[in-house]
């Protein structure tokens, strides 16, 4: 055979081997590897060769996990199998990062995403050592898989909005990838805390936080329930740096006894959070209170309270006439549990001062932050960063 023919034969054989090899792999499902995402019936509920979880050094007493489930269901309905150990956590979803820190597992973070490092105000306050963490991009266009591999995490948390990425990451990484986000629901937020707690072996701490949250929210809801529906203020929310962009759902407002003007504009099954309305629509609604998203640093705010008070187009609104235009935290890559809790308390004082707690918001806020993050004066610090002196918080 001539050299060319030989080369051709070798090439054909080589490619045949490769293709058959990968076909074999697909057929056997690679189930022999550990931590592979489910759909694999062999890894459900306490069954399987997975060894019991090791205890982390210096952590709380290990809660008996013999009967604990080996998998969870994430926000996309995927079944995510728990790894043997969860010492290295890569969190590409800022909300989850905050929860990880709140659960006291912050030191397990091996990587975070860009938003929490560059745009989050709370993160450097509650977890200053996090500043040194490497950042991995969390959008499909520029996700750096090699970086992820290098960090070698045991678990990856990601936003459920990046659908294609979730599965591709899962298959590339063969580590549990959980897509979690609260999507603007308190229930989901609390469930998330529990799930993450379960995945990291911090169930007790998770329960603690969830119970605290629930009790405070319940207290608020109870105090507000005595207010007749007619007396609930109509609230218009100007979020995302634009007068006309508003969230169709904002639970803190609902819990605090207010009525979100934009509620129900879009059909609920879509799950869309934001919509755009016309200025006229705002005038039609005649809101009693106008809330502006204050999470933007003061210099960067496109929409400010002062501008709205001076805007002649809104002069007929009760909110303007009564000077009830305030800042609030709003969605900032979903929520921080401590922040949103404090926000709800703040809103209760705004909407219904007569039934709200007589305690100073600052004191109560700091208390909450201490509980969640173990730092002193957390709320005061945050307020200073966001220039909350302009807010109607005391």
């Amino acid at each position, binding site marked *: 055979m001539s050299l060319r023919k030989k080369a051709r034969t070798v090439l054909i054989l080589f490619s045949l081997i490769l293709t058959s090899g990968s076909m074999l792999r697909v057929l056997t499902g690679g189930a022999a590897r550990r931590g592979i995402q489910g759909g694999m019936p062999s890894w459900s509920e306490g069954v399987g060769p997975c060894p019991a979880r090791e205890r982390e050094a210096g952590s709380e007493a290990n809660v008996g996990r013999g009967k604990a489930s080996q998998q969870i269901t994430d926000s996309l309905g995927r079944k995510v199998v728990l790894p043997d150990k969860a010492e290295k956590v890569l969190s590409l979803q800022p909300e989850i990062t905050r929860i990880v820190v709140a659960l006291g597992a912050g030191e397990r973070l091996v990587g975070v995403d860009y938003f929490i490092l560059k745009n989050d105000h709370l993160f450097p306050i509650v977890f200053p050592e996090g500043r040194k963490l490497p950042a991995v991009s969390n959008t499909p266009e520029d996700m750096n898989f090699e970086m992820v591999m290098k960090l070698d995490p045991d678990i990856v948390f990601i936003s459920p909005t990046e659908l294609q990425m979730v599965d591709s990451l899962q298959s590339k990484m063969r580590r549990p990838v959980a897509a979690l986000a609260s999507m603007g629901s308190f229930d989901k937020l609390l469930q998330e805390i529990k799930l993450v707690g379960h995945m990291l072996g911090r169930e007790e701490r998770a329960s603690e936080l969830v119970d605290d949250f629930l009790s405070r929210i319940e207290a608020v809801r109870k105090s507000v329930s005595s207010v007749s529906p007619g007396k609930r203020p109509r609230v218009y929310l100007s979020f995302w740096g634009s007068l006309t962009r508003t969230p169709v759902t904002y639970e803190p407002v609902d819990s605090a006894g207010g009525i979100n003007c934009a509620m129900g504009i879009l059909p609920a099954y879509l799950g869309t959070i934001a919509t755009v309305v*016309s*200025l*006229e*629509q705002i*005038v039609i609604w005649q809101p009693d209170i106008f809330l502006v998203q204050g999470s933007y640093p003061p210099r960067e705010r496109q929409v400010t309270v002062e501008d709205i008070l001076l805007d002649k187009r809104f002069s*007929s609104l009760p909110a303007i006439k009564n000077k009830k235009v305030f800042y609030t935290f709003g969605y900032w*890559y979903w929520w921080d549990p401590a922040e949103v809790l404090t926000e709800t308390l703040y809103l209760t004082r705004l909407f219904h001062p007569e039934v709200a707690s007589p305690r100073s918001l600052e004191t109560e806020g700091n208390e909450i932050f201490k509980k969640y993050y173990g730092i002193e004066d957390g709320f005061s610090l945050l307020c200073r960063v966001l220039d909350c002196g302009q807010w109607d918080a005391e």
Partner: protein
Amino acid sequence: MQNKKAKILTVLFFLLPFLLTLASLSIGRFHVPPKDLARTIIQTISPSTGPRVPTAYQDILFRIRLPRLLLALMAGAALSLSGASLQALFKNPLVNEFILGISFGAAFGAALSLVFLGKNFPAQIAAFIFSLIAVLAVLLISGRSESHTISILLTGVIVSAFFQALLSLVEFFANPYALQSLFFWLLGSLSLATWKDLSISLPIMAVGIVALIMMRWRLNVLSLSDEEAKSMGVNVRRERLLVILFASLITAAATAVAGVIGWIGLIIPHLVRMMVGADNRKVIPLAAALGASALIIADDITRVAATFEIPIGILTSIIGIPFFIILLRRSRKVWL
């Protein structure tokens, strides 16, 4: 007889945008009955006539609707006029008002401003400046080449692509919130127009619109080959530059304030040429009138259709494209 009918129709067509503006003042989710509309207008002039209308009416009509309608009027005229002139100039039916890089230049300018300067700098001014920079780049690069028109078109495509790449770069570095602002800006919206925005952009558009309408006959001559036009004593290079300058000016001014609103500059001129033939003396003014009317109607639709507001750029595409397809099938042969 034919002439008289044509004259009446022409007058009607030119009045149309203004009539529509008046009618649209009473259109919107906030119901202002025509009687109150009239009263509000009268009371703005002489405040003491009759019982006072609620202040909300005045806010709605004069602070929210009127600036918006005026912007729709002028931007609609500007975009379709620009498209019509450039189509004649470049002798090409596929040319639109954004062909010289204006849309991406404006988008890039707005992106730079929104992402890096935030509130300190109004995005409109940056958008305006960069869209003109794009046109300037096109003119400088295509420079003194032989087949001027072809090289301008090609350079326009390249410069657009360049600014698009720069835009992507800025988007890459932008935080999610600036990104969202940019996204909505790009979709086009007349809703946030304030009198302050209009005070700068309307005069610019007015100047350019008037200039182009004055040059309507000249465009006939400029649509001939260079050879022919030169032999007829026309300084082709200079006059072509003039048309490009005015067309770019009004497109930039419209885009800076209203965002990128597509298809008006492509469809309206074609529609008009189908109706009245190729003579730019008729096409140009009619394109302005019809463009203005079209954008006012589109804006009316976005205001009324639902509680939420569909960005107008989306609407013009959704309505525009099928309409264009219908046009193509029925068009009488105007382009050779």
